[in-house]
């Protein structure tokens, strides 16, 4: 029993250490005020899940943006490359390098973009699936439901934007993007929220003799596309396409899967 648990604890410890700053703390500090590139106002809404990252020669740090700013205390003095991440909605256009000495304050403008992010995945009959969770795949697949936030300056509410998410295999070139047994239904629910449903989804990519083969048992990213619908006809013009990290495991039923 101990032999089984020990490696897990060891791996967990190594992973935990990996996310910590990689250098001893110092005496400098940095406050980054994050603003909207168009309005010049601080971005205070926590819905965007903004994070500021600093990368120095030997040090890396990350802090969330709270009330419009990210504060780094006990930094080692030096030069840092500053980058940002967001669940959705903002893009850093500038390459930013900052020299941190003692107490430094700076402003970083982020561009508002058409974008969306998945916040919740659920499966009919199985409830909510967290990051790293497992989805049981019966023979006929599952109905995947996803909800999240979006913004679309180019195609704002009440435009009926289209949302598409695929759950590719870890190696999509070889193992594909999964199979949908019906048509995805998607749309905005409000000026900032969307939902979509993918019927009869299976983590398999090829049909051979009436069965789905090339099935995979894990995924680590979602592939997201938001489009604005054409005025006439089917389809739309893409507004954003991107990846979002979301690890999943799939437990295939015996005899799985039928298209």
């Amino acid at each position: 029993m101990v032999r089984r648990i020990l490696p897990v604890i060891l791996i967990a410890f190594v992973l935990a250490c990996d996310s910590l700053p990689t250098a001893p703390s110092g005496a400098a500090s940095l406050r980054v005020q994050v603003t909207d590139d168009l309005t010049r106002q601080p971005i205070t809404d926590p819905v965007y899940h903004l994070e500021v990252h600093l990368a120095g020669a030997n040090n890396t740090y990350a802090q969330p943006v709270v009330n419009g700013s990210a504060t780094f205390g006990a930094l080692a003095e030096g030069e840092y490359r500053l980058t940002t991440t967001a669940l959705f909605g903002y893009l850093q256009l500038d390459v930013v390098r900052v020299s941190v000495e003692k107490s430094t304050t700076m402003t970083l403008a982020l561009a508002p973009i058409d974008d969306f992010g998945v916040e919740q995945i659920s499966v009919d009959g199985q409830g909510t699936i967290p990051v790293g969770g497992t989805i049981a795949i019966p023979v006929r697949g599952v109905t995947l439901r996803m909800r999240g936030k979006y913004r679309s300056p180019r195609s704002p509410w009440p435009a009926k934007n289209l949302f598409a998410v695929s759950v590719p295999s870890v190696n999509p070139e070889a193992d594909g993007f999964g199979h949908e047994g019906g048509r995805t239904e998607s749309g905005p629910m409000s000026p900032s929220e969307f939902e979509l449903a993918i019927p009869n989804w299976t983590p398999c990519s090829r049909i051979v003799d009436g069965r789905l083969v090339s099935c995979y048992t894990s995924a680590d990213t979602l592939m997201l596309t938001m489009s604005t619908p054409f005025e006439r006809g089917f389809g739309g013009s893409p507004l954003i396409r991107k990846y979002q990290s979301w690890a999943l495991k799939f437990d295939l039923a015996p005899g799985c899967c039928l298209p």
Partner: protein
Amino acid sequence: MTRWLVLVCVLASACGASEKATPVTPTPIGVSLPPGAPGDAAAKPDTTRITITAVEIIGPDGARVTPDRLKVRPALSYNMRVWIFCPPGLEGPQGSGWNAEILEYQIRKGDPAANTGGALSGALRLEEGYTVIEAPLAMTTGPGRQRVTTEILRNYAVIAKDEFTATFSE
């Protein structure tokens, strides 16, 4: 589903263009402007983002023309030269994914009054310094005005933009 959606989008985009697409090739220039480059193509000191610094309109005689003094004939006689500056640190691959290192450009020309227009687009990968995209600029429906929009896109998000109005007369 996603792949079908993308395919439909691509096909629909192709159908939507009313102007014949002309292949254009982005040309990396290097970190410095070459002799003969227009002065306004130079990026301001400390430019930190990918920027369309200038759009030149070149007449049939090779001289630069202002966009309010264009002639309808001879057709297809003007060229646009779009100057793009990429500061160090934003060149080449950015992030990860299947198209992380590829940007797109779109040049859209439209006359809302006549409900005409068209677009050119393609992929490019920026090197540090300057890149030039050359594209034809023509008015096919007679005298009038066109809104000309040039955008640099990353994953369909606009990261640089330039707009001007071209006025054509007899």
